[in-house]
């Protein structure tokens, strides 16, 4: 992947993380599981996924959009 497509892919991933941290599709749901509303569990799982995403980013693409600026200038 070129740096540009790679940057777009990571940005889309980050936007998805932002967009679905709140489970909009569960709007109005009041189901409870294991002591907490199910939508709280979704959020907990989603933030764990966010951590994994950040970790993958630090491993594979750290510096993207930031460090290459310096080599050009």
């Amino acid at each position, binding site marked *: 992947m070129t740096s540009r497509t790679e940057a777009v892919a990571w940005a889309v991933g*980050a936007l998805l*993380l*932002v967009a679905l*941290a*709140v*489970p*909009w599709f*569960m*709007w*109005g*749901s*009041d189901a*409870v599981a*294991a*002591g*907490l*509303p199910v*939508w*709280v569990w979704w*959020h*907990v799982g989603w*933030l*764990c996924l*966010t*951590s*994994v995403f*950040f*970790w993958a*980013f*630090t491993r594979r693409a*750290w*510096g993207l*959009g*930031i*460090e290459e*600026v*310096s080599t*050009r*200038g």
Partner: protein
Amino acid sequence: MAETAIQVGILVGYMLVALAVGVVAYRLTDRTPEDYYLASRSLGTVVLLFTTFATLLSAFTFFAGPNISYRLGPEWILVMGLMDGVIFGVLWYVVGYKQWLVGKANGYLTLGEMLGDRFGSRRLRVLVAAVSIFWLFPYVMLQQQGAGTAVEALTGGAVPYWAGAGGITLFMIVYVTLSGMRGVAWTDTLQGLFMLGMVWAAFVWVGTAVGGFGAATETLRGLDGNPLALGGGAYTPAYIVSTAVSIAFGVTMFPQVNQRFFVAKSKAVIKRTLPLWPVLVVLLFVPAFMLGSWAAGLGIETNVNGNVLPPLLLEYTPTWFAALVIAGAMAAMMSSSDSMLLSGSSYLTRDVYRPLVADPDERREAWLGRLGVVVFATLTFVASLFQVGTLLEIGDTAFGGFAQLALPVIVALYWSRTTRWGIYAGIGASQLFYLASVFVDVVPGSYLGGWSASVVGMLLGLVLTVGVSAVTTPSTAEDPSVYERTGAD
């Protein structure tokens, strides 16, 4: 009475530990401003993680957060999780890592310095510092006010408000002047771990006492509007998104958080810290805010200060435990305020005072920074005695005020064609618009079905920074290349 003794004992214990840490930190300090304000950019993963955590979340998480989920429902977990865990996490890379690189390469200590250098403008530097102090000052004042009220309540009025607020201010002055960033970050780490442990202990204790987490959560079903159902009431999509966006961007420009972008020891430290962040915040938010919502279901009434966590704990946990958590919350308040004092002082001395006088030598400037702490803390304390309505309102809307700075700064960091006029227009107009929305009746605070003025102002700042930059030409003093230098290791 025993309860008061325990609370006061814990509070005094915390202060002694903080002072001891301060003394150790002082002995390790070089007498330079970079060391005093930024611990010579030497923080490791654990300390960076927890100092950011404690600075960002402490007092708010203990008091305001549970109060909001008590009144409005547990969706506050989602608002704060989205804000802090996800959006702030992304911004920590986009703004924070970039700032760390250019800060290290060019020796910047403050946001104003970073912008002033790039745009060759001392005036811009002073403007950014002045805008920041404008919002920070009443916010610190609110913390002192909270501390004074809490001490008064804690001692049943034996220690009056002014003495409580004054005593805590004095303690912070001594400790922050002594320890600088290094000591503040170390106590934050202890504070953050303590806070997390206490919140979980309280969560488990209350949950067990009422017959299990499920039973506690089910009590909400019977309330008006069924707070268990996602959304509804105050929680509209526009409210959730604009609150999360505005606070997340605002937080990045809060001096005490923004300055923490500069302090990591190495790139590896930031890379290790970032993935731990979302899990750490969700670990705190779920128990802290569920407790607030449970209190509503369990029919707990707020105390005289309007807080719900203390009466909830006093109802379901032993007195000593409730005392421990409440004292912990006050210590938390101090761990936020000390960082704000330190940053406020650095903006005041470095960006406002220093440009007005001939460059003082480094040793003298480090002392000037300490004097700045004394001045800043004393002024906010005096202001807290008068409870001026306007100042209270500025403090309450500070997050939105800081959020207005974020997009012009991001544009400047990444777009080399940004001009001085562009950033002036972006910062100036968005600040004026947001201030008008807070103070002028004819300017609404909410747009198009619930989008806050803060978010609208942010967009205005973005459009003006880009638009005005596009139609103006940079002056010769501007140097975009300073942001392309990196000190990456």
